[in-house]
């Protein structure tokens, strides 16, 4: 049992190149898509990468046969998300690059990513784990990890705020804590699994100089839809199951009343609440 529990893991981390949330973001163009010119590796994906690296390192890392592959899909600039992941510590990268992917919704994205995982299953050995962040900081739907588990037929272990390797009743796998609104759960899943981790799961490491230099030698595979056996009509705007008809920035909030406390601001605050019929 211990032997099988310590076998090397083949881990895929999904990473996304997203507009920096520290700046104002804009929807533009006839398809109401996001301006991606000022993009970075999604902050929430750093927790996924850290979780993957820790699981691999616990088992002796790359020299013991563990594998951590950073996978992204998107336009050429998305390669930056893979590059940053390699600098932080991922062992290799995969970039699904195809013009037909533009405008994919969650259904199309999960379809394409499931096909990438299946391609890796066939070409690079069976995948044990697919790890993602709790959401992308641009789409914010959190639909893709659940849809990926559904499409791959893997166990779904999402929103993990603590994660560790464990021997489950169904064999080697993971144990996690998942915090809901009114309760907290301890859940276990055997491999293969799709895992998403929250920003509570760990403290992501930063790339250091050695990592940045080493990343230049790490292999990155670029795949097309044809290579993973996906018909381009199933993804992108053409294959989307949802459409966006219009978008508008939320109207700016009007300038409010700002006062400086003169010793009675608490009373003024209550006057304001009363004027708005809030008390």
């Amino acid at each position: 049992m211990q032997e099988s529990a310590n076998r090397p893991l083949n881990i895929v981390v999904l990473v996304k190149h997203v507009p920096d949330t520290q700046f104002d973001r804009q929807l533009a163009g006839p398809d109401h898509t996001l301006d991606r010119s000022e993009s970075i590796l999604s902050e929430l994906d750093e927790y996924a990468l850290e979780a993957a690296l820790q699981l691999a390192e616990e088992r002796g890392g790359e020299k013991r046969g563990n594998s951590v592959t950073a996978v992204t899909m998107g336009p050429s600039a998305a390669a930056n998300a893979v590059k940053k992941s390699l600098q932080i510590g991922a062992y290799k990268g995969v970039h699904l690059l195809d013009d037909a992917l533009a405008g994919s919704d969650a259904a199309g994205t999960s379809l394409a990513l499931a096909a990438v995982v299946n391609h890796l299953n066939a070409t690079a050995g069976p995948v044990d784990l697919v790890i993602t962040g709790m959401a992308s900081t641009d789409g914010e739907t959190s639909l893709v990890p659940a849809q990926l588990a559904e499409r791959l037929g893997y166990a779904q272990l999402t929103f993990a705020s603590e994660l560790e390797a464990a021997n489950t009743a169904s064999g080697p796998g993971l144990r996690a804590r998942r915090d809901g609104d009114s309760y907290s759960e301890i859940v276990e899943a055997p491999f293969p699994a799709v895992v998403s981790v929250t920003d509570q799961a760990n403290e992501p490491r930063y790339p250091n100089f050695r990592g940045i230099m080493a990343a230049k030698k790490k292999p990155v595979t670029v795949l097309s839809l044809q290579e993973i056996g996906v018909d381009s009509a199933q993804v992108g705007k053409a294959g989307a199951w949802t459409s966006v008809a219009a978008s508008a920035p939320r109207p700016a909030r009007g300038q409010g009343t700002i006062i400086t406390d003169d010793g009675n601001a608490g009373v003024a605050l209550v006057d304001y609440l009363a004027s708005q019929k809030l008390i």
Partner: protein
Amino acid sequence: MGSVLVFIDVPSLPLPRASRELLALAATIGTPAVASPQPLSEDAAAELAGYGVQRIFEPSQPLPEVLVAAKAAFLAEAVRAAAPDAVLLGNSFEDREVAARAGVKLGSGVITDAVAVAPDLAVTKSVLAGSYTSTCRVETGVPIITVKANSVEPAERGAAGSPERGLVTVPETGPAAVVMERSEKRVSGRPELSEARVIVAGGRGLDGDFGPVEELADLLGGAVGASRAATDAGWIEHSAQVGQTGKTVSPQLYISAGISGAIQQKAGMQTAKVIVAVNKDADAPVFEIADFGVVGDVFKVLPQAAEEIRKRRA
């Protein structure tokens, strides 16, 4: 008029406000029906009928204690049985995941974070952390829509009745994460953060003391929220976090105390109807979005406001 299937994962009465909001929204689109992954008592079924529910679907066998997969399989079968015009769920992590997987099973598009759904099923949703609003549609399959709390007025209860009840056979769910332990969180008596009408939230400026925030929240019948700085410091549990990586809230009133209001926090609360801010730093970004702001000490302003509310109520 077709039916609208509402996924309600609540075994207990009275029906929470968020569920009553979904039923009210469903009634503006079609005839409400309910898919309940838990078996319902006669009383619960009668109560649902009081909100206009004519049909209820429940699993024929108790669902296994696994994450999401079984509930999604149940919902997909309930949709096949009910053949509704649309499916509505809440917007919690779990409801969105149930929607996500049922969508794949059914070949149905899923839209999350809805704030309005028109009778023609055009969905208004908040995107980019509330900074944009977009109008979208599901183009393929039965539309599955997860709706944010506080988006519509909840339904008023009418006369109880006895809705038609159907049992749904749920197929084998396949590999899934098994729930080993479940611990209820401490019951605070306060409303759930994402559903609360009033939220009083504290940040770095509280320096570890949430007392004034809790006092005001309790006086206003509200929930207690926090910035990431406050939850990271361990002053309050992580589930109280409002923001990009915490909860997104749209209450009627959000009182921000000692929170600078940087983008990470703003992302979670800028769709609140009324924002009141108290911060000692006049340059805090929160004042740019506040309807009413006080530059002052939270430890003076909040207790004084609490005292004034008590005085007026006396």
